[in-house]
């Protein structure tokens, strides 16, 4: 039978958290995109160099019901400083905007261009072990792999899991703060009060 391979085939990883934010109302897509983009850069998942930005897919389709937009980001970073490439954080972000139409809003006597539709943001955070594949490829190291991972690295793994979990939820709060939904981290602590929100205050 045919075997299906994906990018994590043979790679040891743990999905730390997975969540979806769904919203259907008036918002400004450009602001939301920009805010997510800035967060990715601020948290060292990418640099300001556009060709290196991990946007793997972008679709902009106009239909009778409105615009449909898809974008997929596959962000990666090494959490520990230096040349250590053993651990890796993978943040997969899929955004889907449906039935989007342009609308005009009047806020404090000024006309603003905005969008109306449904936006869905799906995020999956994964912690990758042995990201460079050193232990997997080396015949000498391979037999000790399981033992080494369990006995020696369990504390580092726990620590990094927590860190990734917190980062993923910080990202979640960034989206919910923009959309004015329930956020869990106090906005001042997360530095969210700086950025604009959908109601443009």
């Amino acid at each position: 039978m045919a075997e299906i391979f994906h990018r994590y085939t043979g790679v040891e990883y743990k999905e730390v958290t997975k969540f979806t934010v769904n919203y259907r109302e008036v918002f400004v897509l450009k602001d939301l995109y920009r805010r997510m983009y800035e967060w990715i850069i601020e948290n060292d998942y990418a640099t300001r160099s556009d060709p290196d930005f991990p946007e793997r897919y972008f679709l902009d389709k106009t239909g009778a019901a409105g615009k449909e937009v898809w974008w997929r980001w596959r962000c990666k970073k090494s959490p520990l400083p230096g040349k250590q490439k053993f651990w890796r954080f993978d943040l997969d972000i899929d955004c889907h905007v449906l039935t989007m139409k342009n609308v005009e809003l009047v806020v404090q006597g000024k006309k603003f261009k905005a969008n109306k539709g449904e936006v869905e943001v799906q995020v999956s955070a994964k912690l990758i072990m042995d990201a460079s594949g050193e232990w997997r490829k080396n015949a000498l190291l391979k037999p000790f792999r399981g033992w080494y991972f369990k006995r020696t690295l369990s504390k580092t793994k726990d620590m990094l899991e927590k860190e990734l979990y917190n980062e993923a939820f910080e990202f979640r709060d960034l989206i919910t703060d923009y959309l004015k939904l329930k956020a869990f981290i106090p906005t001042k602590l997360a530095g969210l009060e700086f950025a604009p929100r959908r109601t443009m205050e």
Partner: protein
Amino acid sequence: METRKMPTIRIKHKGIFDINDILQGIKDFLEDDYFKFHFPQHKFKIPTPKGGEHKLKMYGERKVNEYVKYKINLYIRVFDYTEIEVIKEGKKVKMFNGRLYAEVSGDLILDFEKRFGGSAFLQGLQDFFHKYVIRRKIEDYWEDDIILKMVNLGKLIREKCEQEART
């Protein structure tokens, strides 16, 4: 040539600030510290009802000796701003009311003249030189020095924005 990236300092400010004063302050700070100041990018977008937007990129370079060079990069984005008039020390001054985002990052460039560039043997020699001969000097002196300069530059921007300086 080896480039070591230093941690980035990020400043976010929402409120009233004088962009001209900030830019002049950055230029003076770098030039007073013997950096060569470069301003390669200034983008301006047509103001929308939310306000205008400026994107600025600048950097300062300084040769410490014939082997080491400091490079401090600045990225400033001013957005959703409107121009207002403020009376400051009895004078009318034009200032911005909006959001300012600044990033100060630094590069420690070793062997910028590429003396060790070329063969694999020379590269190996360079690794040995960096790891065992001048390691302490790199990590304890030059890296600390450039980080201190970046922190001071960040502090200057915060002071210009009249934020509380945190160093």
